[in-house]
């Protein structure tokens, strides 16, 4: 038992260690900060999200002081994520930024306490234009952007731009507002064709907003849209079906205006306050629909750089390599991180400008997003390079994208990374110090043609197996399953043998029970005084045989004095008594004197009973 407990303890400890290791390997605290829009009009708010990952206790400021801006924290949310048995948690603080005047404003880095460490957010820049009605004004499609006071619900689709390029990712926000209690919501969905859209990411908790003097619970959903073709593109409308609690028509006792569907003339006639216990309200499905938003989609300019793979946005690139001192043929891992804002799903790895003398393996990519919809973040590519000859540097990496703000293609080019490759033929290369990437003319980004390497394959093989081979995995072949018949027959044989063994054990148990019963019965008879000598000695000798049979697991009839003496390891005196008893029994049985009048003395009876009762192993 103790061994089992020890095993269980080891298993439990291993499991605990495995779970704990998931936390142990969790990433160290980090912070990112992004603005929902880098441009805004005076009085038009933008959202700033500060996301702290890898820390349980975080202290962030409630408000941030910045010249020309009013910044207040409006909400906090916490997310947990488990990936590859590693748990990460993050806290997102959402701030509302209200521009007070036109100009370009910096939001200074903020100190965030995360666990025992102090982190700083990056500095953010917001361009504020004169009025919200100009270019920074979002493209809105609303069922009531000037929300109709008579309506209980409104839907709004906000697209921050009125024109975009094909493939450019544009954040979009769907806002659904309800002035009455929402029971359930089906949707929302954005209708339309000619664009791709990320899954809508909705907030669990609504924000209460006062619109035209009425309180609305506003649910916000975020997504990102990318146009697939040029031309006028209609996005939306946003459609949803809301199940609302509205005042029951039949039970309403208040008089109301015939033009007021929901009895909204005064504040307290709102169904939200009509009956807190829901006695005079009913559920009603209300369709919600916004107006559509039109986007002017422009095609990308002609003549993109050779390595342009469709990346559109604003990116920066850093490149590093490790190790920096190797032998010819050794692998070097080059890590290129492209960060910024744009269509990260179309980002491919930066290209090595001059691949001559290098063997390049396919890169791996990892994306870490900084927002809900994946248009802001950093994509890290790891490429393994192996030098075929002596080298002094890894040539620059180039990465091209289209910048919709500048309306031109931009090619980022990293500096050459000095390394030391020993062995093989020498090669000359001009080296400049490593560092971050710098934009370069698009024409300079074309990678050089690789030089083919002379390699030869191995010889032909002339032998063939006797039987054709098969691609079918073994478990899917009939022979495999036919082969299972052998152990199956073995198992059936094993079951039969076990069942037979159980039956034999049962018969033996029954025999032993019968012998025990007979022994007890004989002892009971021997204690009686009315038995004739013939019966008495017959029972006594039979009792000895039965007891011996029980002790030695043999048939009672084969038991004689010697066997009984040996079975119970009797001394010579007792053996003599047994001999006399058996002899007397045989004499009475075979001499024909069983009906004689001879009696047995009580002392003799006691001696025989004592002898029989002491027959134990």
């Amino acid at each position, binding site marked *: *038992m103790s*061994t*089992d407990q020890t*095993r269980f303890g080891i298993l439990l400890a291993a499991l605990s260690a495995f779970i704990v290791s998931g936390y142990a390997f969790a990433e160290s605290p980090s912070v990112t900060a992004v603005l929902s829009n880098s441009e805004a009009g005076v009085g038009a708010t933008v959202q700033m999200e500060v996301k702290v990952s890898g820390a349980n206790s975080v202290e962030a400021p409630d408000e941030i002081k910045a010249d020309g801006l009013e910044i207040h924290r409006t909400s906090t949310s916490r997310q947990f994520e488990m990936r*590859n048995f590693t748990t990460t948690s993050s806290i997102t603080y959402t701030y509302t930024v209200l521009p007070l005047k036109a100009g370009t404003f910096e939001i200074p880095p903020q100190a965030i306490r995360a666990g025992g460490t102090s982190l700083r957010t990056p500095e953010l820049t917001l361009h504020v234009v004169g009025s919200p009605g100009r270019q920074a004004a979002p493209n809105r499609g609303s069922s009531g952007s000037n929300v109709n006071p008579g309506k209980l619900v409104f839907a709004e689709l906000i697209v921050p731009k009125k024109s975009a390029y094909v*493939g450019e990712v544009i954040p979009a926000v769907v806002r659904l507002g309800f002035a009455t209690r929402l029971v359930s919501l089906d949707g929302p969905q954005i209708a339309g064709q000619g664009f791709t859209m990320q899954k809508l990411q909705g907030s669990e908790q609504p924000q209460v907003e006062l619109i035209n003097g009425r309180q609305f619970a506003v649910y916000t959903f975020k997504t990102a849209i990318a146009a*697939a073709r040029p031309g006028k593109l209609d996005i939306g409308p946003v459609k949803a079906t809301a199940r609302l609690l509205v005042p029951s028509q039949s039970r309403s006792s208040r008089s109301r205006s015939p033009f007021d569907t929901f009895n909204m003339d005064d504040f307290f006639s709102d169904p939200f306050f009509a009956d807190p216990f829901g006695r005079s309200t009913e559920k009603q499905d209300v369709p919600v629909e916004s107006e559509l938003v039109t986007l002017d989609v422009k095609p990308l300019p002609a003549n993109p750089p050779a390595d342009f*793979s*469709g990346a559109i946005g604003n990116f920066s690139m850093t490149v590093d390599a490790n190790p920096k001192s190797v032998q010819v043929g050794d692998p070097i891992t080059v890590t290129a991180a492209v960060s910024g804002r744009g269509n990260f799903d*179309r980002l*491919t*790895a930066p290209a090595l400008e001059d691949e001559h003398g290098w*063997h*390049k*393996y*396919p*890169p*791996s*990519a990892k994306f870490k997003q900084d927002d809900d919809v994946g248009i802001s973040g950093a994509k890290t590519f790891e490429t393994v390079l192996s030098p075929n000859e002596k080298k002094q540097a890894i040539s620059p990496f180039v990465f091209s994208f289209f910048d919709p703000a500048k309306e031109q293609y931009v090619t980022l080019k990293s500096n050459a990374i000095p390394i030391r490759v020993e062995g093989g033929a020498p090669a000359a290369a001009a080296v400049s110090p490593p560092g971050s990437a710098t934009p370069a003319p698009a024409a300079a980004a074309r990678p050089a043609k*690789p030089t*083919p*390497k002379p*390699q*030869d*394959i*191995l*010889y*032909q*093989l*002339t*032998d*063939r*197996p006797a039987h*054709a*081979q*098969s*691609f079918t*995995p*073994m*478990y899917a072949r009939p022979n*495999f399953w036919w*082969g*299972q018949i052998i*152990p199956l027959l*073995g*198992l059936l044989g*094993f*079951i039969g043998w*076990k*069942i037979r063994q*159980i039956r034999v*054990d049962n018969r033996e148990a029954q025999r032993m029970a019968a012998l025990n019963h007979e022994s007890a019965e004989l002892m009971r008879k021997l204690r009686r005084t009315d038995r004739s000598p013939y019966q008495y000695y017959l029972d006594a000798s039979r009792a000895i045989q039965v007891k011996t049979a029980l002790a030695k697991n043999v048939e009672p009839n084969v038991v004689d004095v010697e066997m009984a003496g040996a079975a119970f390891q009797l001394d010579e005196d007792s053996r003599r008594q047994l001999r006399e008893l058996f002899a007397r029994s045989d004499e009475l049985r075979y001499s024909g004197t069983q009906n004689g009048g001879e009696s047995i003395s009580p002392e003799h009876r006691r001696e025989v009973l004592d002898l029989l009762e002491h027959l134990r192993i």
Partner: protein
Amino acid sequence: MKQLRAKFCALLASLGLVASVLAQSDAQFVKANQEYASNHFKEAIDEYQTLVHAGEWSANLFYDLGNAYFRSGDFGRAILNYERALALEPHHPEAQANLRIARDEARALELRPSWPERYLQSATVNQYSIAAAVVFWVAAFSITGLILSRQKSARLITLSSFSLAIFGLLAVAIFWIDDTGKGRALAIVTGKETEARVATADNANRVLALSPGSQIKIVQQRGDWLYATLPNNLNGWIPAKSAELVRL
């Protein structure tokens, strides 16, 4: 008696037919090798392909066919046939060596195995299948013994639980390698200028340019297009005629 004689003759005839087919395929294989040795690679490919179509599959046949394609400059099909040789014999040393050379020449892209695949690649599906069968029967015997014993032995309980757990892990490993990993869905790009696209149209945006011999994993087929998992953790549509499954 006449019937028995007829049956015996039929048996002899069938054996003779089998022997003649085997001899013919051997002769064809020898002829293909001779064509290859004479630098007649196109003819060698035709001879090898005849054997492939006849179902006379062997790792050496696919390896030789891969060599013939390599010599004729078709690196995509060379890599495809080396992969087929390795699918039949995962440790075929010549196929491994030539595949590496062909990939270098073609600059073919490889799928990066997921972390479970990296651990599970130490054995083949067939080895996992045999191990799973053995462990299954150990579990079956020990559970039967446990059920039919009067006294429930702790050793038997431990053996039953352990073998059942191992069987479960092996079953998952088989499924993972064969279904999720580079199993039945693995295909090789054989087209010369293949480009994966975001949609099933020739003018749809490009996702990735695939060199001949690049590995892909087919997710689904729609008409003349294949939706596939691509190297660099990408997905896209490629023309169905541009890729071939490794497993026949």
